[in-house]
């Protein structure tokens, strides 16, 4: 079950990172990369690191992508888009092959994965209060609702102007 969830989250993350290259509107690009930040935080939760997931969510989604929405996507649109797709596909396959070969050739990574149970980040009392399950799920709900409000406000401002 956990493997299935991780597979779905990883495929969604790869799809949102490709759609940064595919979209033409800057607002859609900013939405795709904020979805990628939320998926990265959910992958941290799947790695059994709830404290780091909450910090990642607060900094990346709350700080970086809010500033991105306000500073870039609310100003205007640009129709210019230049992507050299053959170069992107060829170099992506080549870089992934080199990195995958380098990671799995020596066999140390598979030995590492089969050796021990993973450690979680050392939680003190504050982060233990963060990492109880219901508060984390409510935090994700609040993030989703705030993004709905923000994107709706930006679209409304573009329509009013």
């Amino acid at each position: 079950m956990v493997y299935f969830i991780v597979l779905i989250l990883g495929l969604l993350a790869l799809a949102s990172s490709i759609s940064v290259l595919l979209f033409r509107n800057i607002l859609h690009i900013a939405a795709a990369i904020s979805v990628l930040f939320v998926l990265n935080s959910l992958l941290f939760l799947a790695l059994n690191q709830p404290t780091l997931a909450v910090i990642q969510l607060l900094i990346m989604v709350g700080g970086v992508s809010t500033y991105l929405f306000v500073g870039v996507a609310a100003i205007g649109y640009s129709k210019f888009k230049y992507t050299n797709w053959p170069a992107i596909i060829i170099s992506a396959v080549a870089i992934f092959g080199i990195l995958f070969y380098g990671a799995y050739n020596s066999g140390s990574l598979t030995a590492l994965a089969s050796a021990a149970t993973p450690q979680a980040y050392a939680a003190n009392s504050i982060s233990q209060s963060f990492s109880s399950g219901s508060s984390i799920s409510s935090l994700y709900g609040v993030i989703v609702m705030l993004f709905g409000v923000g994107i709706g406000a930006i679209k409304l401002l573009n329509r009013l102007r």
Partner: protein
Amino acid sequence: MLDYFVIIGLGLLSIGIAGIIGSRHFVVIILLIEIILVAASLLAVSLYGYSNSPMILPLLFVIWAIAAIDVIALVVLYRYTTLFKTDLDVSKLSKYGER
């Protein structure tokens, strides 16, 4: 379980680097750097669980600081591009110095 995260991280990293090679849009290149930072943090946290070191937060703070500085530079330069009505092509950014 570790293999999934390593493959996802390597996929994000290769998409980011290949996109920087093949794209010429100014905003897209900065956001692809953000994708590379996401991949770096994912790989670091997934390998941290199997290591003996308790130090993960300094590395993650460096990654978050680089991400924040990238977005700040993007917003400042994007204001200039909309102010001077210039193109978002990276190869034409040197026009700013010629005025």
